[in-house]
């Protein structure tokens, strides 16, 4: 078992003919993910990697291939449109890798998807990885092994760091979810904690947060009340100067809110062990 993606995932890649889309489609296929279709408007009828058909629209691609998950590599200025398109085509799970989507676009997208009951992971995220089953996005497939640790993170490469550290000591992962570094995103920490709580194959959870917003504090409240499994955490940005956006659009300490210290305090109070640096995580599990 796992959450969100597994061997039954039938993946559609939006922006499949672009540089990044193509490179990571290769990687996902090599990993063993069932990539059933690609979409690039204007390139319908072409083929990618020999056997993946490219379509002009998501709707046509879903009808033809039965895709049940979308991953979008579409550039920021068109990304919101690509998410609406996937949602309107009836795809229940959309993963958006794209960084730099205007925040007002994301507010509209999120409110629209909530009304439709469609799940979005990201944007500005590395996607999902269920070792041994499926990889949807850009997480390097060889840095994690199958196991019973669930990982959820606002970051990309920092997540790889943690997966790699787990692998180095022989610890495996049920599913890793990168929820993204934007201030407005789809799936959040609590959504993932709920899913891991319910997943019989997840025994422990690693939560990787960073400065900005109050999602970690809310996750801590959820953990204190409902979490049946141990949670270990790391929070990035303890040395970040206030008022500066640390790369991620959402990573900013504003008006005294979003501090790493407050998040660590809230998590500690909820019984979560917080690591001093990511390579310390395996020893806390």
């Amino acid at each position, binding site marked *: 078992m796992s959450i969100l993606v597994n061997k039954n995932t039938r993946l559609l890649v939006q922006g499949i003919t672009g540089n990044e889309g193509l490179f990571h489609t290769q990687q996902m296929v090599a990993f063993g993910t069932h990539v059933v279709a690609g979409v690039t408007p204007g390139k319908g009828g072409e083929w990618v990697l020999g056997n993946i058909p490219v379509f002009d629209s998501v709707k046509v691609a879903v009808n033809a291939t039965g895709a049940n998950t979308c991953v979008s590599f579409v550039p920021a200025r068109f990304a919101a449109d690509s998410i609406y398109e996937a949602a309107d085509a009836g795809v229940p799970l959309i993963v958006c890798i794209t960084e730099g989507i205007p925040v007002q676009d994301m507010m509209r997208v999120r409110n629209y998807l909530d009304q439709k009951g469609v799940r979005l992971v990201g944007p500005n995220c590395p996607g999902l990885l269920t070792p041994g089953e499926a990889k949807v996005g850009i997480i390097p497939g060889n840095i994690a092994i199958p196991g019973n640790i669930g990982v959820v993170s606002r970051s990309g*490469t*920092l997540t*790889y760091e943690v997966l790699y550290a787990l692998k180095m000591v022989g610890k495996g992962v049920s599913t890793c979810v990168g929820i993204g570094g934007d201030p407005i995103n789809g799936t959040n920490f609590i959504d993932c904690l709920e899913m891991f709580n319910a997943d019989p194959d997840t025994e422990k959870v690693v939560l990787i947060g*960073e400065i900005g917003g109050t999602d970690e504090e809310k996750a801590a409240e959820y953990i204190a009340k409902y979490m049946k499994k141990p949670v270990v955490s790391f929070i*990035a940005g303890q*040395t970040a100067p206030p008022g500066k956006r*640390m790369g991620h659009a959402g*990573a900013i300490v504003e008006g005294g809110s979003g501090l790493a210290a407050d998040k660590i305090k809230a998590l500690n109070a909820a019984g979560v062990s917080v690591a001093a640096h990511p*390579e310390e995580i395996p020893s806390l599990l």
Partner: protein
Amino acid sequence: MKLHEYQSKGLFARYGIPIPKGQVATTATEVRTIAKELGGWVVVKSQVLVGGRGKAGGIRLAKSPQEAEELAAQILSMEIKGLPVRKVLVDEAANIKSEIYLGITNDRAARKPVIMASAAGGIDIEEVARTSPEKIVKVHVDPLLGLKEYQARDIALGIEMPRELWRTFTQITFGLWRAYLECDATLAEINPLVITEDNRLVALDGKMVLDDNALFRHPDLAELRDLDAEVPSEIEARKYGLSFIKLDGNIGCMVNGAGLAMTTMDIIKLFGGEPANFLDIGGGAGSDKVAAALRIILTDPNVKAVLFNIFGGITRCDEVARGILTALAEVKPVVPMVIRLVGTNAEEGRQLLAQANMITAETLADAARKAVAAVSQATGGFPA
């Protein structure tokens, strides 16, 4: 991207929000002429992108063109919180009956825009929010529906706006909503919105912050950026699409991914060093971007060592390695360099860099320790 008061109010006026008559000037003589045209009683306001201008003496009332000129001369020679005053806004003075706060921003937690208003205007709204939150009226707007008229009325009611001004207030609220929406603002704020002695509503001061990620839709607004308020290396970095923030330490950092870049700073500090910068080369960075990043790091004379921490995902380690080689050939750095490559195409990257005389590290902790040790060696055992 922050806009100046005069830029923000200029935009407000486009959306039908009443602003005082006024003009921007860069010299005291200009200020005198403007003050004369405006009838003598004017406010001279420094235009710098920091808060607390009033407290710093950067906003002054003048009762004659002569006084306006004198005050302008003082203000134009000031520095406010390290920023030189290069421009002043000269506005006609208003007779104020009461002051209101009206602002629109993004509520992260609610995932919606929120309009905030308070009858306690003219002061720091964050302070009001802390000390007396009951004085702030908040209305969330459905981003798919947009602002509705009843919501604007609710705000007017909530702040006890006199009934005869509801109509104008509603127009102003809609104007501010459109400015927020159409400029892709993350903050559009009138503080204060005043009721004058003759019962008019006027936006005396204004502030807008725009979403950097949306500037591609607004090339005209992108040009309003004030480079004075920014560090030169950060301006240079933006040209290459690099996310760079200068810090005070001596270990330069080049990392891919914002979370990992922050973590690299944190771990340097944890092991007793001080990071010289935050730098995220971004996903999928090519060699030219990497080369630019290294040049920017090395222009900082404080940098005594450079730590590269690349965990390949969307970024390919071989591309990063090529960028490093390009930059090394060009810059010929003398400081020690510690490198850690893991993930996509890491092996190819390592092979490319085998001849480059860099200190290699396996883990993040190992890399941080080696960088801190290299600095301490370079500075004769005195870190930072």
